[in-house]
């Protein structure tokens, strides 16, 4: 038998706290919505706005101020300059607005820096240039992909589960994706194609824990019939708690490894995965299960069954 067991035989009255967590989730969603309205949407990367991103590495570390002056002297306007941190302090991210058919300004920037700081080598690490037309196409595709997969999952869950479960699961899904988007916004991160990939993965993955809980309720429906609905839900959540936590934990560990060691290019992606997996676990209990419970109670009350 097992030597090590976590979260077995727990009897936590999860559903008792659901008013508080509804408020917590509601606050998060409201904060995200307010942020999005105030800022006119998330901070999109060049993938979606169109424009140019240049990442360059200098042979020695210069101050952001010096580099900015050099670029200003080149006559380029609307340049957003960002110095990278830690070991990559000699690297800079440069963003420019899109104009259709313009040239990539890297050669200009290279010359400008070389002219101001003789002897400094400028290496192009990467550049992404997206025309406004392609940007808006990608934006459209991203929106369709997110909506499409949400609807796809909704349909699948709707076919496999009763309405009350499907509803809870899908609201939880929206919750996870939206809150993750909010966390990206609050931390000043950009929504790029890879971040959209992370959001979609979260949509597909975060529902797994919910499925585990719902399967348990369905399986034990006979035994739990005598219990109050909230008690039945608590039993199901407690019985599956170790699963919910451990499955998320393994993915969380790998996402954490990506976040810490996976490099700059993947950082926003892995950040989104970390947040999404974390909130996915929480929401399977406090959004999906809690909402399913409230609908369950309401439906039974309408049928004249005393549920609570």
């Amino acid at each position, binding site marked *: 038998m097992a030597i090590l067991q976590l979260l077995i035989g727990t009897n936590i009255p999860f559903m008792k706290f659901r008013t508080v967590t509804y408020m917590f989730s509601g606050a998060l969603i409201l904060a995200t919505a307010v942020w999005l309205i105030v800022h006119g949407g998330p901070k999109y990367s060049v993938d979606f706005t169109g424009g140019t991103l240049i990442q360059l590495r200098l042979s020695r570390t210069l101050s952001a101020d010096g580099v900015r002056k050099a670029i200003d002297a080149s006559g380029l306007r609307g340049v957003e300059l960002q110095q990278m941190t830690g070991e990559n302090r000699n690297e800079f991210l440069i963003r420019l607005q899109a104009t259709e058919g313009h040239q990539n300004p890297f050669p200009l920037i290279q010359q400008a820096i070389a002219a101001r700081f003789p002897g400094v080598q400028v290496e192009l*690490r990467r550049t992404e240039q997206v025309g406004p037309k392609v940007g808006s196409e990608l934006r459209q595709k991203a929106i369709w992909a997110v909506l499409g997969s949400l609807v*796809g999952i909704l349909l699948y869950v709707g076919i496999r589960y009763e309405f009350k479960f499907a509803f809870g699961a899908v609201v939880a899904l929206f919750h996870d994706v939206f809150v993750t988007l909010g966390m990206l916004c609050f931390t000043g991160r950009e929504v790029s194609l890879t971040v959209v*990939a992370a959001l979609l993965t979260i949509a597909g993955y975060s529902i797994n824990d919910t499925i585990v809980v719902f399967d348990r309720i369905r399986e034990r429906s006979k035994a739990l019939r005598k219990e109050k609905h909230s008690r039945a839900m608590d039993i199901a959540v407690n019985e599956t708690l170790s699963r919910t936590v451990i499955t998320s934990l393994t993915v969380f560990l790998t996402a954490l490894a990506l976040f810490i060691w996976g490099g700059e290019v993947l950082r926003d992606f892995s950040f989104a995965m970390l947040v999404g997996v974390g909130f996915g676990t929480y929401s399977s209990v406090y959004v999906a299960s809690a909402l399913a419970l409230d609908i369950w109670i309401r439906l039974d009350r309408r049928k004249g069954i005393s549920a609570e």
Partner: protein
Amino acid sequence: MTRDQWKLLGVLLVTAASLWVLYPSYRFYSMTPAQRAALPAQELAELRRKAVHLGLDLQGGMHLVLEVEHQKLTPAQVRDATDRAMEIIRNRVDQFGVAEPLIQREGEDRITVQLPGLTDRQRAIELIGKTALLEFKLVRTPEETQNVFQRLDAYLASRGVTEGLADTALKRMPLTGHFLGTEGTAAFVRDQDSPIVTKLLATPGVDSIIPSDSQLLWSGPETSAGATGRYLYVVKRESEMSGGSVAAAEARVGLEQTNPGAWGVSMKLTPKGRADFARITGNNVGRQLAIVLDGVVSSAPNIRERIPSGDASITGNFDIASSKDLAIVLRAGALPAPVRIIEERSVGPSLGSDSIQEGVTAGWIGTVLVVLFMAVYYQLSGLIAIVAMVLNIFYLVACMAGFGATMTLPGIAGIVLTIGMSVDANVLIFERIREELRNGKSVRQAVDVGYSRAFRTILDAHVTTLISALFLIQFGTGPIKGFAVTLIIGLIANMFTAVLFTRMIFDYWLSRGKAQRLSI
């Protein structure tokens, strides 16, 4: 054979097939550059084709999406122009010498160009994007030229563009007043005057002042009397000859007598082109013939005598690289319509190899964390899950090699996440088995119930993730597609390894002794 033996055979076959598919990748990526160079080219190409392809974000390189400008074309012509442009670009890239370029059409009017491992992006962009429309046009005589400029002056003055100017000379000569001396057939405009001259020439009605059989053309950057600027020419609108008459072109030095060290392109004309050229030069001795590339006058040499040899040359501001590239585009021909770069994603070789290294590091650390957790928490059963997870990753990479899918950085992220997700199914099964054991079931019963009860949950969980991944595939861009592909293959392989394979091991384990205890 029993059912268990069939299963074992299945697993062995799949594993053997994966090994076989992965062997070329192992060989290719473990070779040193010197060993690769020692291989016969054909064998190396074969090996490269069979190995897992690395995306441009990992090996460094350039991804371009070009759009054919088609405002002036009918829909039927667009497709044709795109196809022809694609062929010409392919020719240019082949002559440029890039290993494994990928050039393909995307939709009606777009062309995707992928150049792996390319370092000189600026040069590649110029080579690919240049229309390379070569025309030979007669320059108007000095009298004709001055006449056009004077008429423009008079027109612009009458339009009142000079109102409010103090300078009386400019009032009288709004256009030529900006010229730094008119050298017979061409006017020199300094860089600082260039914007205003361009603006003046854009004044409505200017087109009607210039005779309809003539046009104004700029030269490339030049210097005159120590100032940098460009020459403005008046040339005959109709071209005498086009680049289609060029049979061969090569970069050379010493084409200009006045500047023998300068690079340029020397051309051999086709037989018909040679006859035309002889006739044109014969008829126009003493005049200037402008060599116009993409609407810019490269040079405008004097025709001293009839040239029957069919040798022509282009000189101007060239260095060795730009003259070589011009020779390439002249040989490959002009694009049927201008193309525009609407998307570029370039990754330098250093970032590519850093990304691989970081991705692999993250992968190993993630693996170690998951392995430690599973081994400590589930003991021997955990080890089974670990073997299943390793098999899963192994099959995943084998599938990518087998289907010729491309490994990208998000793809590596997908693999790392798959490491964490692939044990999920086993966690669900093991937790269920533990629960049944706690409820007093025998080991055999617990395993049976564990697998059968957890299966439905596992299937549902896989399907929802699969739905999201399928929606990701529709993003045509390489890296994201790579992520979606790894996720999908990982999910499917997982059903095989985490459910079928581990069950087989459990069955074997239980059938050996009268197992009373399970290390779980």
